């Protein structure tokens, strides 16, 4: 008897859930029915594969089986409309759909999940569920909400998609830039949720980072000609390359300047930098490409002292022109401190308004510390601590505060 264990099905599940649901949603015109059919197919796989062996194309087998299950179900329930739909399904060609068609369905699903008519947190959850194949429990755990709450959020979202008829379609050329920006924002939100979640344990966050990388890779595979898609992939790869160096053994945060750069993942760095170079050659920079280019400059420096801060500052100037937000201006000020000194940077930071974020007082505190204004620095660290929710960031700020308060 062939040796098939449940983990085989689980691996296929994670890999092919999104593909299968995307294809079935197009065939059935309904996400719920598609999910049901795909889950039926996986249940069948759990029973059959240990006996019959894993089929040569597990993902294709799942799609075909899900389609057959959907036909069975429609016939069984057999209202007139359902019978019509079953007939329409049967008219579809039998063999698993071609790769190109699957790709189109994957894109449709992404654009539906990231539709602006859905709340941002809902877009993230739906994308992780329907594109990433994460279970409701996993998503709930990652965002620290009860599973029932997350389940309800997903049900509501799917109900809105159905009742308001959010289209299952790649947007037209005219709408594409806006809508694509929305999709990229969701993938990046998944990454930053994993990278700097305001609370939560390390394991969970690592999962979200990995998931964001997977989504970014998937998107780059689906839209290889969109420079901003490649920019986003480069950005998450370069950030991800520093994961091991970013956390000290005691779990506290290690700032870029103090990271052991030998612990950066060289393969991810190389891949990210190659993507950045590829983007630069295309010459159509957008916010994600410029952010990735900034990270690539950091990745180029063997030590923090070797960082080409003038280049970083030039890129921040560019980014600020593309995206004139206080957060970008704050990050630019950090580069200014390296090029023109902390006093110049402090004047820039003091002109910024960024309420409710610990980032501004944290940067201010660091500049004051470097200017030797310890009392004011300690006060600024207190301001930052009052706003920071992430345990590792708090530990870092407390350590710095103790340094200036003691010195």
């Amino acid at each position, binding site marked *: 008897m062939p040796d098939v264990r449940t983990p085989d099905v689980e691996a296929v599940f994670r890999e092919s859930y999104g593909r299968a649901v995307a294809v079935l949603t197009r065939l059935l015109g309904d996400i719920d029915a598609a999910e049901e059919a795909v889950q039926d197919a996986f249940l069948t796989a759990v029973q059959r594969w240990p006996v019959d062996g894993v089929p040569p194309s597990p993902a294709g087998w799942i799609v075909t089986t899900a389609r057959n299950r959907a036909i069975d179900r429609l016939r069984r329930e057999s209202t007139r409309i359902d019978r019509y739909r079953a007939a329409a399904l049967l008219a579809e060609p039998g063999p698993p759909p071609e790769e190109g068609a699957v790709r189109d369905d994957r894109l449709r699903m992404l654009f539906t999940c990231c*539709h602006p*008519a859905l709340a941002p947190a809902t877009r993230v959850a739906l994308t992780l569920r329907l594109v990433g194949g994460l279970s409701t429990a996993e998503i709930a755990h990652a965002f620290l909400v009860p599973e029932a709450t997350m389940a309800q959020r997903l049900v509501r979202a799917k109900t809105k998609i159905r*009742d*308001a*008829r*959010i289209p299952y379609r790649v*947007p037209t050329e005219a*709408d594409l830039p806006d809508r694509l920006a929305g999709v990229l924002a969701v993938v990046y939100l998944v990454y930053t949720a994993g990278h700097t979640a305001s609370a939560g344990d390390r394991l969970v966050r690592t999962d979200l980072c990995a998931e964001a990388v997977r989504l970014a890779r998937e998107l780059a595979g689906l839209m290889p000609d969109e420079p901003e898609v490649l920019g986003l992939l480069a950005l998450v790869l370069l950030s991800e390359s520093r994961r091991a160096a970013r956390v000290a053994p005691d779990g506290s945060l290690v700032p870029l300047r103090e990271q052991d750069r030998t612990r950066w993942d060289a393969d991810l760095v190389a891949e990210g930098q190659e993507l950045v170079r590829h983007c630069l050659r295309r010459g159509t920079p957008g916010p994600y490409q410029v952010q990735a280019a900034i990270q690539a400059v950091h990745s180029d420096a063997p030590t923090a002292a070797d960082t080409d801060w003038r280049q970083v500052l030039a890129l921040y100037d560019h980014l600020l022109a593309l995206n004139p937000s206080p957060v970008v201006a704050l990050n630019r000020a950090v580069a200014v401190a390296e090029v023109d000194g902390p006093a110049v940077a402090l004047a820039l930071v003091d002109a910024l308004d960024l309420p409710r974020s610990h980032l501004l007082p944290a940067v201010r505190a660091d500049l004051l510390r470097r200017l030797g204004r310890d009392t004011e620095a300690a006060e600024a660290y207190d301001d930052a601590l009052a706003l920071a929710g992430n345990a590792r960031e708090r530990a870092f700020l407390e350590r710095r505060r103790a340094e200036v308060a003691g010195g």
Partner: protein
Amino acid sequence: MPQYLLSLIQPDGPVPPPEVLEPIMRDVAAVTERMHAAGAWVFSAGLHPAETATVVRPAGEDFLVTDGPYAEAKEHVGGFTVVEAEDLDAALAWGREVARATTLPVEVRPVASPGV
């Protein structure tokens, strides 16, 4: 064809002076004209201010009639249009046109049972 209700969310208060209102009314009429031309228009109406509303609610066998509007708010529905649209994106495109013409927020909501 699915239908959507486009509600115009209007701040309470005095009606704007004619020199403000007239160009808006012209723009709104032009949008309505485009809806007709596209075969999307089902019905539309502008409403008197919310303070002219009256609420009737069941109270046992009887009914209680009170001064309206139903919800205390600083904005109320000031007018509405029902359009036929193939999906939400098509409905939102009309929503954008109405918002542009009126300079007001527009709530786009799917109709569950047309004609009932």
